[in-house]
């Protein structure tokens, strides 16, 4: 299967749940899913055809004005990169865990959870992976409104 065939197949498989599509670069296909619940069936559709492996999950904070976060799931097969994109509200963002289907998603999802405050439902190991044990709850470092210069600590101490 060459790159174009892979992208064509991916588009067909996920069509049912796609609300927007883009081809930002040669070899890339960016599919926006309607809602977080569509993630599991869409990924299952790709998996059944053994189309690509989960290479990374990217979180993006679109900022306070847009009041939204995005979670991007990148599947790679040869040169083809298929991205499943989900838009989430900043408050109460939640996505289902892929670990049942793709065990290697675990560390990516734990990172998404602690860096962006996106709840990953049914994550097998929801403990901290990167952040210190005493990192204050509700502080999500990769959100745009988190200022790393002044860490707000549990005791309220600021940076020097």
């Amino acid at each position: 299967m060459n790159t174009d065939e892979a992208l064509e197949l991916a588009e067909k498989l996920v069509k049912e749940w796609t609300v927007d599509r883009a081809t930002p670069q040669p070899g890339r296909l960016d599919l926006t899913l309607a809602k977080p619940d569509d993630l599991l069936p869409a990924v299952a559709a790709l998996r059944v055809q053994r189309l690509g492996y989960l290479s990374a999950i990217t979180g993006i904070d679109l900022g306070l004005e847009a009041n939204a976060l995005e979670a991007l799931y990148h599947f790679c097969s040869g040169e083809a990169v298929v991205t499943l994109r989900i838009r989430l509200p900043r408050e109460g963002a939640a996505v289902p865990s892929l670990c049942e289907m793709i065990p290697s998603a675990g560390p990516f999802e734990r990172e998404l959870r602690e860096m962006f405050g996106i709840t990953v439902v049914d994550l097998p190991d929801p403990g901290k992976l990167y952040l210190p044990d005493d990192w204050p709850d509700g502080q999500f470092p990769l959100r745009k409104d988190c200022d790393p210069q002044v860490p707000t600590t549990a005791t309220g101490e600021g940076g020097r």
Partner: protein
Amino acid sequence: MSVRTPQERFIVPIGPQHPALKEPGHFEFTVDGEVVTGASVRLGYAHRGIEKATEGRNWIQNLYLLERVCGICSHIHASAYALGVESLAGVTVPPRAQAIRQLVAELERIHSHLLWLGVAAHESGFETLFMYTWRDRERVMDLLEAISGNRVNYSANVLGGVKFDISAEQADAILAGLEFLEERTDHYLEVIRTDALFVRRTSGIGVMTRRQAEVLGAVGPTARASGVPRDIRVEAPYMAYRDFPVVIVMDTAGDLKARVEVRIRELFECYRMIRVMLRDLPPGELSVRMPRRVPAGETVSRVEAPRGELFYFIKGNGTDQPERIKVRTPSICNMDSVIKLAVGHQLADMPMILAGIDPCFSCNDRSLVVRRSQSAAELWSWEALRLHGIEAYR
């Protein structure tokens, strides 16, 4: 002595600071006698906040920052970033520059694989092999220093090309160095295949089948040692890999010995390709002009680091700073796979199995912030650190 009930779990904590590995990582192994029944990993001890830091720096500053994600595979990080930014900006890099990037990347792979072979030998108790490989690795470090001026962060890239050319004398020095290294590598291949102790510590240990490697998401030499044909240089050629292709090196055994063999055999492939490159290096310019502002857009940049697929996602917003840079390093994929495989193995094999994936903790831990200390006076702000750096090296 009380009798232990089967329900009780005995946990052996290892790390963050421990004699097995030189970098910090915390592992908890649940054991039944000597046999591991469960394992978990806790990272973050080398976390520096690099992904966040990129959002406050311009495109050029980030080239220098991202080269410092890892001290072993520094060039490949800077290259993945540069390739991504150039594709966002719509800039075509001259072929000679791409070839020199690839040349440095392959020299870096040689030094990284030799370094790893030494670490693996050290973990198995084979100190002599460790000493010899690290002595020989100096030769490739000298070559890198001769062409770039640096032993570690070569700073070969600029956005739009490379900084330095390869002169005829440098090419001769590299060829002479390769001659020496190839002879040594031949010897090491024989050693790891025949040394009784090393074979017993590696053969049949930490076996990962092809199916497991695929499901658990292993990448790089770890995946290739289990027969998974995954190599970005071959699958999705970047830099000059279309003109100077590599042959994928694989093994089907999937054990530690296979992981050692695959890396050593990859070295021969590096030597072969560098010789071809030095012979047929395309002529031309070394760099093109890059715009200061990069158009809004998103790009994915994938390269084959010494440890496996390195994935960069770069989002620009039309200014001179990126909106978001995501770095997914190969070590995190391999770490997770090996932790899941630990079950059923002897506790004493754990250091070797962990070292077998060539873990890089700086890579794992790239993204976050400041460690809070008990006393506020010990907490350094970025500005204070910067001023300290300027004063200290004045």
